């Protein structure tokens, strides 16, 4: 249930931008890496709860999940990591797992009066 703290941080960021724009946020697009273990339903529910009574009441969340990336040490080919595949899909070489994408607030769509 770390989604609750994520929702609180997200709310603070969106409220601050909404105050700056003096507008109502309709939709916020966020992205996360596979290692962040974000469950869409849980995050949306937590955001709905923490946003009650604020300008974010009713703001929709769009969540993009970025896959775990790996890169072959031999041929440098980047690919999507699967624990079940032990080697580079192109040359069969050894690979390294690249750092997971951080949780990002990408864009906010606002309603104009």
């Amino acid at each position, binding site marked *: 249930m*770390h989604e609750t*703290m994520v929702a609180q*941080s997200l709310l603070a*960021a969106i409220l601050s931008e909404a105050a700056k724009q003096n*507008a109502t946020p309709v939709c916020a697009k966020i992205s996360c890496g596979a*290692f962040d*273990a974000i469950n869409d339903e849980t995050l949306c529910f937590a955001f709905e709860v923490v946003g009650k009574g604020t300008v974010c009441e009713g703001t929709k969340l769009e969540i993009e999940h970025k896959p775990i990336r790996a890169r072959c040490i031999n041929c440098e080919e980047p690919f999507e990591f699967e624990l079940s595949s032990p080697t580079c899909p192109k040359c069969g070489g050894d690979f390294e797992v690249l750092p997971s994408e951080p949780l*990002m*607030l990408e864009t906010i769509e*606002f309603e104009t009066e």
Partner: protein
Amino acid sequence: MFKVNIGKKILSANEEYARKNSSFLAEQKKLCLNMISSPGSGKTTILARTIIELKDKIKIGVIEGDIKTDIDAERIRATKAPAVQINTDGACHLSAVQVSRALESLPVEDLNLIFIENVGNLVCPSSFELGENGKVVVLSVAEGDDKPAKYPGIFAKSKVLLVNKIDLLVAGVQVDFDIERVKADVLKLNKDIEIFTISAKSGEGFADWCDWLVKSVKALG
């Protein structure tokens, strides 16, 4: 309708505190390790034994995180090491601001190494940086050898893996745990991870783990 590009890390408030903790610890030249595992893997028992085994070599302090009670801090204090208990009152992980406050209550200047024992949970704590030098993930053999495949995040982000309770891997005890499978899966996620197989009960494997800690403390100068 209009769209505004933000491009900001959602957990930046936590990361700011984590950076503050990290620069404080770097200034003081203290090693700080964030210990993460499922509940019941043996984190507190490992810490108590580590403190006792290293008592003449390095001074250790502990920040204990639990939802309720100060049972764990008491167990650490019984070894004569200083311990601060944080109760998260329901939260499933520690956050950097809590660690920041706990560091103020520890005699940091007298210590070489600070362990943070996170709330027992393999998922949530891995997303929240606390300002540590590294994460130590503990997996006890009774939990099963499929955990790196099921919870890859924490194994990918950790500096050390402690495979605990290896005293249970003896003939006649029904524990299906393939250490080689765990090592192969974890090394695929994280080729730089240090793996120690230990038993906090019997002390098996502690010599190598403790040597690694002493070496890491010395490397900070």
